[in-house]
């Protein structure tokens, strides 16, 4: 049962244009959402996050939008750069109560930014 879904395995965008990566989730108890970026042979690195009480968070070229009613979030990268080419994972936090959380990841979207 996949609670976090990234239905697009890959996306190709021209340099300078906008990249939009999408993510859907099924568990309404998720309270926090994160995007990770992963280069080959490296571990995922944190990119940006959003709390479930917000609908938008912006950090430089990266903006994450959250639509709770649709259980959907998206990551916008503008302008896209060749160095952004990587696999992007969407993750949702499930709180176990108290101080323990776990992240549930989507399967990732491979973004290729063409020069």
């Amino acid at each position, binding site marked *: 049962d996949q609670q976090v879904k990234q239905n697009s395995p890959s996306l190709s965008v021209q340099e300078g244009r906008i990249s939009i990566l999408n993510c859907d989730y099924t568990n309404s108890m998720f309270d926090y959402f994160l995007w990770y970026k992963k280069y080959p042979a490296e*571990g995922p690195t*944190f990119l940006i996050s959003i709390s479930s009480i917000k609908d938008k968070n912006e950090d430089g070229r990266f903006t994450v939008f959250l639509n709770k009613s649709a259980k959907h979030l998206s990551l916008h990268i503008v302008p896209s750069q060749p160095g952004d080419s990587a696999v992007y994972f969407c993750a949702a936090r499930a709180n176990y109560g108290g101080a323990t959380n776990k992240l549930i990841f989507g399967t990732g979207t491979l973004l290729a930014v063409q020069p």
Partner: protein
Amino acid sequence: DTAVSQTPKYLVTQMGNDKSIKCEQNLGHDTMYWYKQDSKKFLKIMFSYNNKELIINETVPNRFSPKSPDKAHLNLHINSLELGDSAVYFCASSQDGIGETTEAFFGQGTRLTVV
């Protein structure tokens, strides 16, 4: 100065062997994790330790045994390795807390190949 480091980066071993993967974090975090990324690129949590105490134990064969000698280390020992154990294993850490919005920091991964 690596925040989360795991060794080895590559591990090739025969079926039936016992092997260990080590993980250390120098971030002062209280919580450490092991994630597994399988052949379908699905990144899934295996274990979580908070202050050396096992908190999360997903449905993982008991051939996998995590050990946390102190809160900066979380090692993964695997007995009687099977072909299906081949995957990339990621260690991660985070500073969890009630109401805190924190991200997990990942190691570079250990690619385990069982032949």
